């Protein structure tokens, strides 16, 4: 076994050439690509870390803002609820007042209507009482009763005090139309003469007395001159009764109201 020195040196040179070529074509390029890729990955990783940090900061910031918004929202909701409560109470109070006023008005209206109805009822009752009394008295009235009434009337005229007698006298004298005697039935002649006598005693002329028959009087007799009336009739009593009854009922209604 020998060593060919030419081949030996050729192999050394071959090896050096190969090392040079591989350094240029292989190691340099590959290591450069690897290093650049590593640097790129590291840069990407750093960037990702930075972005992660920023994202975390942003998240914390948004969390903080969200908490603030929630707190503000809660506070606003509480305030709104409180305001709404106050407003509700105000509205309730206002509504209550309005209801009270309406009720008051209603009560007043009801009371008024009640009073009006009662008044109307009372007036009607009075009228009915008056009508019933009038009808009863009309049924009961007759000439005998009329005579008694006329006697009573003559007695009443005779027994008048001086003041009233003076008033009648003045009225009779000043009357231009004379004296009118009204009755429900015809007055008998004897009563007429007695009445003429009495009236003339008050200063009336002989023919100044006129006699009229008026069924509305029901029963009784009335003496009329200008501005003066002297009567004793059921109609008169009934009118007085109606006025008194109506007056009494109104007074009572006023007291109740």
């Amino acid at each position, binding site marked *: *076994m*020998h*060593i*060919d*020195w*030419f*081949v*030996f*040196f*050729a*192999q*050394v040179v*071959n*090896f*050096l*050439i*190969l*090392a*040079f*070529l*591989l*350094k240029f*074509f*292989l*190691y340099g*390029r*590959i*290591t450069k*690509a*690897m290093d*650049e*890729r590593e640097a*790129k*990955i590291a840069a990407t990783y750093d960037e990702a870390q930075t972005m992660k940090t920023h994202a975390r900061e942003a998240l914390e910031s948004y969390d903080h803002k969200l908490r603030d918004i929630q707190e503000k929202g809660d506070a606003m909701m509480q305030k709104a609820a409180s305001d709404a409560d106050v407003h509700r109470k105000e509205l309730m109070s206002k509504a209550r007042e309005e209801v009270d006023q309406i009720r008051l008005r209603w009560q007043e209206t009801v009371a008024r209507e009640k009073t009006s109805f009662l008044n109307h009822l009372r007036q009607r009752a009075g009228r009915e009482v008056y009508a019933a009394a009038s009808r009863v008295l009309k049924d009961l009235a007759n000439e005998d009763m009329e005579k008694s009434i006329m006697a009573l009337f003559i007695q009443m005229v005779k027994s008048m005090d001086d003041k009233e007698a003076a008033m009648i006298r003045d009225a009779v004298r000043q009357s231009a139309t004379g004296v009118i005697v009204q009755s429900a039935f015809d007055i008998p002649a004897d009563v007429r003469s007695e009445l003429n006598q009495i009236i003339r005693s008050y200063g009336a002329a002989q023919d100044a007395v006129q006699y009229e028959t008026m069924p509305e009087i029901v029963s009784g007799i009335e003496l009329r001159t200008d501005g003066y009336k002297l009567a004793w009739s059921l109609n008169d009593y009934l009118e007085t009764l109606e006025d008194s009854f109506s007056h009494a009922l109104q007074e009572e209604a006023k007291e109740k109201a």
Partner: protein
Amino acid sequence: MEIMTIDMISPDQVIFWQWKFITINATLIYTWLIMAILVVGSWLVTRNLSKDIRFSRWQNFLEVVVGGIRNEINEASHGCGDKYLPFIGTLFLFICLSNLLAIVPGYVAPTSSLTTTAALAVSVFFAVPIFGISSQGVGEYFKEYFRPTFIFFPFHVMGELSRTLALAVRLFGNIMSHEKVIAILLAVTPLFFPIVMQALGLLIGLIQAYIFSILAMVYIASATQAHEEKEETETNKA
């Protein structure tokens, strides 16, 4: 098909052309073939390198190979991988490809020639002081030969020579002997058994390439380490 007869020890003996002392034999031819494969393959793959996350499978393969070599060198040299990568990496790739191609019929590994292994060993022999001197300086480097005392100088020299010889002979002996074993087995039992031995040959070829290059790295690292250790100590003190 075989260009070597069974009685030929080295591909140096297969001479294609000769003029005076210039000899073109099988060793040189197959060396140039390997060189062509390595250089052209590297050029084809690295002409369109991607620096992005997506890249080709061939680029991935070369990155795995180069990255692996760089990591090994970094471990042995304490982080100076890129400085020794062209030398150590070329040693490994050349020897590895030279050995692995032995499964191709008609191919003879240049590393089965003592001339090639001696040339590679001598390259290492000269690379050690070159890297050592570039790292430590001439004086500092040669002082190592006289440590602990000048008496050790001949032993250091003998050590240098003997390890260079060992490098050359170890690689040559392993590859040559394996090729001879395969050739003899083919003659004796041509079925099945040679295939197993071929597979074993791939493993041996890979291991030998690794041993040769890692030993070279260790020698270079030992020559430069004293200086680097001193630098590290000064850096730590600072």
